[in-house]
C-alpha cells in the first residue's frame, strides 16, 4: 500500500493497493469538479500504458490539474515498486 499527496486546493491524494488481477488496473476518482471526464481519461490512459496491472488506485481530488495528477500517479507507482510496499 502507498499513499501520496494531500486533498488540498490544486492537489489530490492517491491510495495505491495491490490486487490479484495482474491484467487490470482499477482507478476510482472522487472529485467535486464535474465535466472533466475526458481529461481524466486521457491522463489515466497515459499512465496505465506504462504497465500498472495488479493495482487499485483510489483518488480523492481537490481540483488538481493534469500535470499534478500525472506527478502523484508517478510518485505512487514508484513507492509501490519498493519491495516493502
Amino acid at each position, binding site marked *: *500500500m502507498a*499513499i*501520496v499527496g*494531500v*486533498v*488540498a486546493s490544486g*492537489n489530490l*491524494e492517491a*491510495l495505491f*493497493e495491490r490486487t490479484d488481477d495482474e491484467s487490470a488496473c482499477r482507478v476510482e476518482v*472522487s*472529485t*467535486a469538479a464535474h465535466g472533466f471526464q475526458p481529461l481524466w481519461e486521457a491522463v489515466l490512459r497515459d499512465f496505465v500504458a506504462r504497465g500498472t496491472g495488479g493495482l487499485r488506485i*483510489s483518488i*480523492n*481530488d*481537490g481540483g488538481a490539474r493534469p500535470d499534478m495528477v500525472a506527478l502523484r500517479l508517478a*510518485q505512487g507507482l514508484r513507492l509501490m515498486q519498493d519491495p516493502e510496499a
Partner: protein
Amino acid sequence: MSQAATTTQRRVSWFEATARQRLAALLDPGSFTEFLGPAAREISPHLALFGLPAQFDDGIVIGQAKLGGHEVFAAAQEGRFMGGAFGEVHGAKLVGLLRAAKAASRDAVLLLDTGGVRLQEANAGELAISEIIRAIVDLRAEGNSVIGLIGGRAGCFGGGGIIAGCCTRLIVSEPGRISVSGPEVIETNRGVEEFDSQDRAFVWRTMGGKHRYLTGGADCFVDDDTTAFRAAAIETLAGRTPLTVSVLEAEQARLKARLKRFGAAKDGSEVWQALGVTNPASVPGMDTEEFLNATKAVRESADDAR
C-alpha cells in the same frame, strides 16, 4: 523532491512537510505502526453532503511508534486538508489514540496543525475537542506526558489552542502560531482597530512561536527543521511532570501575575519590553540561536500546567 525518502542529512522544513513526512522524520525510522490508515477508508460522513472531497485518513494520522527508543503514541494533523480542522472521524481518532495511550501507559506526542473545529461538522467537532481535553487530562493524571509540537501551516487555533494549553509541554518553531481566536476572527468580531489580521508581522508578534516562548506559553523553541523538533521531543520526553492540584494552583497564580504585569500591552513587542528584552524591535529578525541567547534570562518560565 520533498516526498522522496533520502538518506542525506538535508534540512527538512517542518512547516512545508506533510503530516506523514513529519512523522517519518520525527519518529525512530521504521518504528511507526499506523492505526486506521488510509486503506481503512474511515472518511468523514458529512463532507459529501456539502459536495466537498474527503480524505481517506480524515486529515489525521495516528499510531504507535518509538521516539528515541521511548514507546509513544503519536498523532499528526494534516494542516493542508480542511485547515487541519477537527471533524467527527478526525476527532474520534485522536480521542481513541489518547485513551489507548492511557490503557497502555504510554506518553503521547501530538503534531498539532489546525484551525480548530471543522464548520461543516461543528457539533461533532466541538464534542471531540471536549473529549480530547478529557482524555489528555486523564492520561496526564496517570503520570504520562502529552507533548505538543507546533510549527505547521495552519498554526494551532480554536479548540486546538485549548488542547495545546492542556499538554504537558509544547515545542514550537517561529512559523508556529498558537491562539484560540485567530486573527480574522478577532478582526471580524472586534474591528480592525482592535486587530489587523492583514498585518502579518503583528500577527506573529502576538501569536507566533517567539512570542509564545517568551511569555511561557511554549516550553521549547526550535528551528523550522524536522531534526530540531525530533531532538527537542526526545529531550522533553525524558522529563517526568505529574499533573497535580498544586501545579494547577501555581499556574493560576502565574497567569494572574501575567495579566497584571502585561495586561495593558497593545502589542507583543510591548510585552517583550516589559519582560526586559534588550532591543525588543530586533526580536523578529533574530535567528534561533541569537533569539535563545537574548531571551533565556528574561522569558517567563513555562510550568507544567501552562
